[in-house]
Each structure stands twice: as C-alpha cells, then as structure tokens.
C-alpha cells in the first residue's frame, strides 16, 4: 500500500498504511458530497 498521509475532515493527518493495520479494510472512494 502506498505511503501517503491524508488529512481527515478535521485536518488531522493519517498515514494510510497505519490506518489500515487493524485488519481487513473496506476502502471506499467517493466525491465530497455525492
């Protein structure tokens, strides 16, 4: 998984790889409001 930091809606930075270390992940993509 690519190493990238992204902010959440409150500006807190998340390392995507770290966020995905809890086990199986359902990663869903959408555009801001729809």
């Amino acid at each position: 998984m690519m190493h990238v930091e992204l902010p959440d809606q409150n500006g807190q930075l998340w390392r995507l790889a770290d966020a995905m270390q809890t086990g199986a992940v359902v990663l869903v993509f959408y555009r801001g409001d729809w």
Partner: protein
Amino acid sequence: MPGWQRFAENHASDPFEVIAIAIEHQGAEAARPFVEAAGVTFPVLIDSLGLLSTHFGFKVVPNGLLIDEDGGVRYANYGGFDVAHPEDVALVERFIAGGDPGPSPEEPVPYSLDARDRDLVETKLKLGRALDELGRRDDAIATWREALRFDPKNFTIRKQIWAVEYPEMFHPAIDWNWQREQLRDETAREIAQGVCGPDGCPIPQVAER
C-alpha cells in the same frame, strides 16, 4: 456514507474497518459538512490532490477496494461500487467473514498517465486549490481545467469542476441529463482542441444515493 455507517454498525463485531476516501479538490473544509451530516464514526480521509486516483488508476467514483490483513487487494470495483447495491454488500460480507469476495469486474483503462503527467496533474490540482482558498474561484477553475487537459477522462476532476461551477446541478439533486449535455458540449470543444479522442469522453453514470 450513511449507508456505510449503517453497514459498519451492523457488523461492529467483525474484524474489519471501513475507511472512506473523499476525492475533494477543495479540501477538508468542503468535505466536512457532508461527513458530519452522515455521522460517520470510521475514518474519512480527504484526498484533495487525487493522489490515490493516480496511484490506483481510477478515473471515476464511487469505488470499493477490499484489502486483506496482509495489504493485498482482494477485490476492486472502480465506478460502480455502492452500498445501495445488494450484490456489493453481499461480497463485502463474504470478505469480512473470511471468504472469497469473488472476481473483480473488468475495468477498461482508457490510458495511463506517465510519471511526468501525474506530477503535472497533481501540481495543477494543488495550485487550483490554493487559488480557490484565496477566493480566486475563476482562476482555480481554469487551473483545474488545465489538469483535466492532461487527464481528460478523469471524471473525479471534471465533476469537481462542474460541482464548483454549477452547484445547482448537484444540490438538492443530481441532474444527470444536464451532465450528459454538459459533457457533450465540453467534449465537442475538447475534440476541436485535440484533447479528447474522436469517440469523445463517455460519461459514467452511477446510482443516486
């Protein structure tokens, strides 16, 4: 989003996590009201530069990736993955129960950007966002359109531009007929400018939620 929140709540005892990625070129500020309205408790990360779009190569949303505990992509659906689809929910339930989600749909990839063009697109998106934050909306839109010239079939960029230019076509309801007409008009211009191919840039339609 509310649908995925309900799904997560209904499967709270299962060993998995939902992570949502919002492709929102206007950044977290623009996404926050919708995240808060949905009341989600799982992480929602904001990809304002389309980094994951270029990494995975998708050009439309909504998408779904099922990733196992070893980081392997077990299933990918680009452009039609929706919690409102019973078949999508069923394959996710199989996956989080330890089963096989099944084959991923075949996705025609119209083209792949090389590293230089990916950098150019990201740079244009970043500059557009900076201009938008300065209140220079017209300059931001023009810059996002420059990004689109490098990636003309990327509907996450095109629809972002539309949503900023024509918010009334997205709220309170998405006007799909308007999108088709807008795409037809833009495509005609882009063909004249040599941006899109002779077959144009077909619009992908996804279910309304």
